[in-house]
């Protein structure tokens, strides 16, 4: 398969996902509702902390917990829904597995990007936390977001093939997403406190690369019989 036709397929899958989402709004509303609810619970419970030095490093941890749980609520739908409504076979027969994986990853990345763009400023605004290095925070949010999207897409593909899906996402997410979240939290803490985070950033992007390569190699085996 040529690169052009692969790109065309990937683009078609991404466009189809957005078109479906724009008509049903299930994933986006689930993710955003979950995120805003937890965000307001945190802000009411903790309140504005300003520059309190002891509490400030904990704030990025809370942010990533909100992002992780919000994405866990919406992103696994990508493949599970295809199996539940019996459209997976049509997709399996028509599309190249790596293009399907890439298209779904890009769609999930777009969801994560929307989530981060809405939640992050609200979070730091409501809690009154001043970010010392906003550019580095944005970069770590990008790197962490890519990892969350790719990792969740891969886990969702595995979960969709299972007979019992209930807790499988959480079980699989633990080993796959834990290293990523540790790096993302470390990088975010450094950015908030104004410390250098370039080494953590590099490691996070490297972990993204590992997830992308592993996903592209494993997905055809998971997706096809």
């Amino acid at each position, binding site marked *: 398969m040529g690169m052009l036709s692969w790109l065309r397929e990937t683009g078609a899958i991404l466009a*189809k996902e957005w078109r479906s989402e724009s008509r049903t709004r299930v994933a986006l509303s689930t993710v955003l509702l979950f995120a805003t609810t937890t965000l307001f619970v945190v802000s009411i419970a903790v309140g504005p902390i300003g520059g309190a030095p002891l509490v400030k490093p904990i704030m990025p941890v809370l942010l990533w917990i909100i992002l992780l749980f919000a994405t866990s609520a919406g992103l696994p739908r990508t493949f599970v829904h295809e199996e539940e409504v*019996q*459209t997976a*076979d*049509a997709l*399996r027969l*028509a599309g190249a597995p790596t293009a399907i994986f890439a298209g779904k990853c890009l769609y999930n990345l777009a969801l994560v990007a929307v989530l981060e763009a809405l939640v992050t400023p609200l979070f730091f605004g409501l809690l009154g936390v001043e970010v010392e290095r906003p550019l580095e925070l944005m970069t770590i949010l990008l790197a962490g977001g890519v990892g969350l999207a790719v990792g969740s897409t891969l886990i969702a593909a595995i979960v969709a093939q299972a007979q019992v899906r209930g807790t499988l996402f959480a079980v699989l997410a633990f080993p796959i997403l834990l290293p990523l979240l540790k790096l993302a939290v470390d990088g975010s803490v450094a950015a908030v406190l104004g410390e250098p985070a370039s080494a953590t950033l590099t490691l996070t992007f490297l972990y993204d690369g590992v997830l992308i390569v592993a996903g592209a190699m494993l997905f055809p085996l998971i997706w*096809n*019989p």
Partner: protein
Amino acid sequence: METELIFTDIYRSFGRLRVLRGLSGAARGGELLLVTGRNGSGKSTLLRCLAGLMRPQRGEIHCRVNGRALDAAERRRAVGFLSPELELYGELTTLENLEFFATLRAVPDGRERGRALLERLGLPTERPARALSSGMRQRLRLAWALLHRPQVLLFDEPMQNLDQPGRSDVKALLGEHLEAGGLAVVANPDRLDLPKVDGHVELAA
């Protein structure tokens, strides 16, 4: 150009339930192979194996299209598969569904081809797939299966939910496909009144 589908000694079971036991058959270009059997006899399982959607535990499937042997991945993308268990996207319109799959299958005139098939099968172009009746959904599946002009058709209970004009459309399209040199495997509980039947496999329950 040679088009053929040969399956030999196919075995497939689900746990202790043995569904397919040493099944063999073949069809060549211009031929129709009819597979009959009672409910649960394994017709759908056989067609899923032939389409590459399920791997047989034993046996071989050889598919050749226009003289070229296809592996399982190529077979999946080459066949025209019709099954009551296959659905298209309910939130997309009929034409949007066909356009999307035409892009995936690299059909050069996808939009025109989709529109022509919908018109031929009497389906609206702008109605969401979820708003179609069960008979219309079957017609849409038929349009989807024919979209990429496949040489190999695998039809599982093609007449399901169809009215008399719908059944006539299926027979006419099958006839045209065979005349053009394609092959078809049709599975159904009973013998159907098909344009021609060149081979018959009866599955034991």
